[in-house]
């Protein structure tokens, strides 16, 4: 094997390494929503990295977007974990979306949410884990720990912030802004993609220039 090929292989093992514009194939699983799969880099929810969801107000898609994934995992018998959700997930709605409720685990003890999520991720047994960090400032260290744990998890991992919380500078693969009625906005993407894009079930992807400028500015 040539030295270059070996180096290439070595670099491929480090998904946390920024490699300029080089688009690598990112491991991902389908979200179960066609419009989302089409718009997301890698064609789905990234694996081994955090996906951060930033709802503008609570209850505008943080659970709804995950339902197809949760349904798929639980139907295959993989447990899914919702750690510290702000409200009670409605069992009728979840069952209606195809989630097998016996494989759903809800962490209700607010003070231990991060610990519990870390344990679940490290176990490598969960089909998907979604974490709602407790109210108040979210520490950089907490998110980094989750990121490290997420590398052990076979499924996608989500960190859902409250509207009043802002995400710490982090190593997330994907950061999505959610707002009621207007789908999803990609605020940050792993493949060096900085343009902000709106994704929605019906609408075409629209380049939001103002946001693009702001984020390009923020990340420079």
């Amino acid at each position, binding site marked *: 094997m040539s030295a270059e090929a070996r180096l290439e292989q070595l670099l491929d093992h480090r998904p946390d390494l920024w490699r300029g514009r080089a688009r690598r194939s990112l491991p991902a699983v389908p979200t179960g929503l066609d419009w989302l799969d089409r718009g997301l880099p890698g064609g789905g929810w990234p694996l081994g990295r955090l996906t951060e969801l930033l709802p*503008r107000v609570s209850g505008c898609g943080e659970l709804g977007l995950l339902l197809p994934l949760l349904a798929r995992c639980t139907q295959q018998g993989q447990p899914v974990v919702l750690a510290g959700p702000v409200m009670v997930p409605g*069992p009728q*709605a979840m069952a209606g979306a195809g989630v097998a409720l016996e494989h759903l685990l809800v962490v*209700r003890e607010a003070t*231990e949410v991060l610990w519990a999520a870390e344990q679940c991720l490290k176990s490598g047994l969960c089909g998907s884990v979604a974490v709602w960090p407790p109210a108040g400032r979210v520490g950089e260290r907490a998110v980094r720990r989750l990121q490290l744990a997420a590398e052990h998890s076979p499924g996608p991992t989500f960190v859902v912030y409250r509207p009043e919380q802002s995400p710490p500078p982090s190593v997330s693969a994907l950061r999505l802004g959610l707002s*009621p009625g207007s789908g999803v906005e990609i605020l940050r993407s792993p493949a060096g993609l900085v343009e902000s894009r709106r994704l929605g079930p019906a609408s075409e992807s629209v380049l939001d220039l103002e946001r693009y400028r702001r984020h390009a500015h923020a990340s420079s």
Partner: protein
Amino acid sequence: MPTPHPELWLGLHCPQLPLLAAWQCDREMPELHAVHGHQRGRHVILQAGAAARRVGVVPGQPLSTALAVAPALHSRPRHSAAERSLLEQLALGAWRGSSQVVLAPPDGVLLEIAGSRRLYGGLRPLVETLCAQLEQAGLPVRTGSAPVAVTARLFARHGLHAASRGAMRKTLHGLALTALALDDSQAQALAGCGLNSVAELLRLPAPERARRFGPELNRHLACLEGRVSTPLIAWQPPETFRLRLELPAASSDSSALLFVLRRAVARTAHWLEVRDRALTRLHIALQREDGGGSVPVRVGLSRPGMDAERLLELLALKLDKLELPGPVEAVELRAESTDEHRPPQADLWNGNNRGDAWPALLDRLKARLGDEGLSGLAPQSDHRPEKAWRWVEPGTPASCSDKRPRPTWLLPEPRPCRRENLRLEDGPERIEAGWWDEQDCRRDYFVARDRHGRRLWVFHEHQPREGWFIHGLFD
């Protein structure tokens, strides 16, 4: 009296038992340690550790003398209850080698091995296996064997083995009189008579021996030679496991408690293994020093089994969260077990959900979060939406036949809101229920948009209170 089946008894003698029992719960043993007892109004050293013996502490020495010889000596009074429990532990170990076990208090156990030695391929492998297992459990023993139980007990003190009655008598006759382990008065009477070996003693006519040393000695010699059989009480391992361990010093430090619990868990594991049972729940009571009752700690396992390391990890998580009101002096432990056997299952289709790992994760989470901190969700059939769901044990199968539109998020309690901020989109769905349990309500549910554009599940209540409320969100 000839026995129908030739018996062979193995004697296990644990010479260090009083010392081990008194110091069993210490994390750091002082170098010079001993155990003392009460004899004729004085504290007398019963046994001393190797280091203490080297500096001149000998059994039989008054405690004050021993302390003068070795000022750094730590001596504890003898603890008979702990010795008994340790002897049971020894018997439990012996139970692995035979189903016929007899206790020989205070420091010995006998087991019948005529049958089982064939299983092990001879006496030697059997003895070696047993000794290694007991040594690992912290109970070093000496062994001896003979066709007669009482003699095997005596031989165990001296490490002698005899397979036939002839060989046994020969060995017995060669023993010095001091080796017979007689009680004090008999030993004194024998010491002054000018006899040295058992053979010389037996050469005396029996009536003469009875006159000089009492009839007890003759009976004892007859038992040892196997001419008279002694009744034996068979020991059975207890049906339920209970254990009480006292801390060397009352403490509220969780690492000290954990050390004692490690001991207790190891013994529980031993018992379960011998009884061929699987643990379902461990009840622990931490007894407070100030007599203020005990603090209960319960650890349950999602899948019956026994993995000492996992159990200790769970206990550590529990203790971490526990606020002890005061120092703890003793730990009591009770094991709930089942004889149902469920070997770890491998999931054929799904490589992720392998074997024991998921129940182990649930146990660990529950240990720290509490039973309330971790749940599954299930719908419940009730017309009132706030009663139409409940938290359940994780993994509870649930089915839902309700096909009406229900929101993805439910508020823990319906929240009052203002009608002006809502734009009704769908509805109403009239819900009237609860008249049978006096929680009468009459509501009209709507799907509405708020000013953010979120789809809400709201209701207009007519009874018992009039007003508009948000109950959930369609995400």
